[in-house]
């Protein structure tokens, strides 16, 4: 199987497994050589895979940290925020975790970095609209 196929099978399998769990069950399940750690927030599931030697309890905390930051960033985050602003959700994730490892334990730093990058983007966007108006 090629990489993308493996990836889509994995997403399909894990989605099914997690959705079939009842609320009373623990938030971990074993899948192939790794463990799936998931956490549900209203209708949204946040799922991550960790290796067998990893600490599942702290993985839950990492998920929670991400959700807290999303919540702070969007202000009472909901599903639609993530759908329409998925790039932002990815940017925040990339400021929190890269290569599968947590890179920043301070919420404040993550939020500051994302909003500074947003500011650069906004300046560029307004400049662009100015130039396009001028060129008309």
């Amino acid at each position, binding site marked *: 199987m*090629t*990489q*993308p196929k493996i*990836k*889509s099978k994995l*997403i399909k399998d894990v989605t099914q497994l997690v959705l079939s769990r009842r609320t*009373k*069950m*623990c*938030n*971990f*399940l074993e899948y192939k050589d790794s463990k799936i750690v998931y956490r549900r927030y209203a209708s949204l599931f946040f799922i991550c895979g960790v290796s067998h030697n990893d*600490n*599942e*309890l*702290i993985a*839950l*905390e*990492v998920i929670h*940290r991400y959700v807290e930051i999303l919540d702070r960033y969007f202000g009472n985050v909901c599903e639609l925020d993530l*759908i*329409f602003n*998925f*790039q932002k959700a*990815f*940017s925040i994730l*990339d*400021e929190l975790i*890269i*290569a599968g*490892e*947590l*890179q*920043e*334990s*301070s*919420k*404040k*730093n993550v939020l500051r*970095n994302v909003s*500074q*990058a947003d500011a*650069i*983007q906004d300046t*560029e*966007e307004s400049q662009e609209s100015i130039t396009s108006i001028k060129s008309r």
Partner: protein
Amino acid sequence: MSFSNLKSMIKSLRQQKTLADERSLIQRESAAIRTAFREEDHFMRHANVAKLIYIHMLGYPAHFGQIECLKLAASSKFIDKRLGYLGIMLLLDESQEVLTLVTNSLKNDMNHSNMFVVGLALATFANISSQEMARDLAQEVEKLLSSTNSYIRKKAALCAMRTVRKLPELHYYYLNPAKSLLTDRNHGVLLCAVTLITNIAIAQPSTQSDLKKAIPLLIRQLKTLITQGYSPEHDVSGITDPFLQIKILQLLRLLCINDVASSELVNDILAQVATNTDNTKNVGNSILYEAVLCILDIEAESGLRVMAINILGKFLGNKDNNIRYVALNTLNKVVRMDTQAVQRHRNIIIDCLRDGDVSIRRRALELSYALINQSNVRMLTRELLSFLEVSDNEFKNGLTSQISFAAERFAPNKRWHIDTILRMLKVAGNYVREEVLSAFVRLVSHTPELQAYTVQKLFSALQKDVSQEALTLAGLWTIGEYGDVLLSAGSYEDDDQVNRVTENDIIQVSEKKSVHVTENDIVELLESINASPYANTVIRQYVLVSAAKLSIRFGKTFNESQDKLRWLITSYETSPELELQQRSIEFTQLLDMPDLVDGVLERMPPPEIRASILGGTASEAKPVGNTRSITDSSLVDVLGDESPSVGNGSGSAVAGGARGNAHDLLADIFGTGESLGDASASSSVSVGANTLVHPQEKSEKSSVTDIMGLFGQAAPDGDESEKASEEVKTYTAYDANGLLITLTPSPDESKRNIVNIMATFSATGLVECEKVNFQAAVPKSMKLQMQPISNTTVGTEREETQLLRVMAQPLQHIRLRLRISFQVSGRQVQNQVDFSELPSDILK
């Protein structure tokens, strides 16, 4: 018709009613995007890539956008780079050729003046770098590790980690910079540095000795974290930076494994973490859990280990499923080492069998198997049996095997053993492996004093319920084999029998009235089983054999029940199942041969452990009865049963005594008796695996003899003659004071990890040697069983033998320490020799 921006596309997609509508909209949109890409539409590139990423997230193909992402990343604008790199991370992976084209953009952007552009490049590298890319950019990453900007340093550290994971040999670029990052004041950088060092230590174990120098520093950092007061920036429900604490604990664990000196350094801090961390929230427990893992893995003080297991014990009482789950999981890992400490939490583990969460039930079950021992076998087996009634079906096969195994190993008496298995068969007879069944059959045939009891129990159980396959099979076999016992026992069925039954806590008997079983009752039972909807081919085969056996167990006079039996047998003469048809015809023929039939269908001898180990001469030298009792005790030995076998003739008692001696000797040689106990406890698993294998081999053999019932004794003979033809080599172990001892090793036929060593004693002088006592010991990694010597007086005329069975790993070199004592012409001789001349390839 393409959407002008991402937002309108998402809105429109969300309005689609069916999956087919969504799919067709996406197909149209993808086609439009593809055209725009082909026409090099610069203005729309950003919007199109954004749309395409969304399409990809919905699970539709988007690979044709890869090159556009590269173009965006190469743009001078941050807004384009941000989306371009996101697209690269999502649409590409390290297996793709296109990735090589990204290297150059990454290299440029890593040297960009804007830190956020550098950040994008580093994040992309860390997430998807291939080996090739890692090699190309290793030095760039190294440069950035010493950047003055903490935002870049931390990301570079994780890029370095990715490089080391891909190419461990490149660790030398990062080792020193990483160590200097350990003093960084920024938590993010520190976190990434610890992660990097952990990965270097894993990828390149040779660096560990150097990295151990950092242990005191790590301890200091950890201490600051746990003693520091409230720090708002890194606080998680009252705990300062649990993420960093856990990373440090993980690194300490890695560096202290198998290292007593380093472990000593961390004892204190681990104790501090374990006592000072707040255990009311998940965060605190995650740190405690990590500390426990660390303590259990390193060479921690014993007090600390007990503390760790008690923390897990406390976890078991936690309301949170997650905490219980990790506790059970971890206890499963340590139960082999610290059985006693885990035993203390037995009740709460048993409670977890009734948990609402199947994952927790499964862990608890595994753990309770490991906890069964001599003293708690009654209680735990009772729990497991009641769990068996309510457990998920997926557990039942394992449960029945484990119950059978535990009963076999630790049964306080045979009666309890039989009762336990009977109850198990009644409750879950459809979830019993064949080897469990044949172990039961063997148990019954080796327990003549309880055969009447067993066959009655099975008979009345089958009268009530024939839906449990294994129960039916066990019942059919037993009734067929001991039909005469059932008939005669039934006739003097008395109160005593019934009282004993009701006293027992495991078996409840509904009817107390004395039952008289008649031939007709038995035949009717057979017929009803045969006609029941549960009867499958195997059950029919058993019915057939049972009927054949019963026709000689019953009275010889021709009567109605004989007639019915004959009818039952002949009814299969036209069966479409070849096996049944053939047996049916053969039995019919056989039953008409009065001089043959009794011999063929007579009571089976109790199944033996392959006696071929005794070799040609030895088995001839022994009287038959003796062989049998020796087989018994060797069976007990193999099963690792510590309890002396109950009244099985004088032979086994001698064997027990000899074994006791051997144990003492082992204890002498290896120091205290306790350590020996430990060793045997820790290896109990492997014994378990063996016992499960054993009955199966036996069952194959016995089912052949059972079903055919014709060539009962012929098979073993064949084996022995085969055995004798094999070449054997003999080694001299001892030759002094008028006694010669030679050892003849041969690999066991049925078990690949066992060597049978036949010790042969002969007197070399003119006088006989008396009171010969031969004892042996093996290293702890092996196991030894000894049979009693055939005669403690070695005469001048004949040789005496003694069998040793050594269980070892393949290719393990077998070493023996031998202690010999005997009297020769009134003089006491005692000697000890080490013997290691056996070829190491004897176990292949």
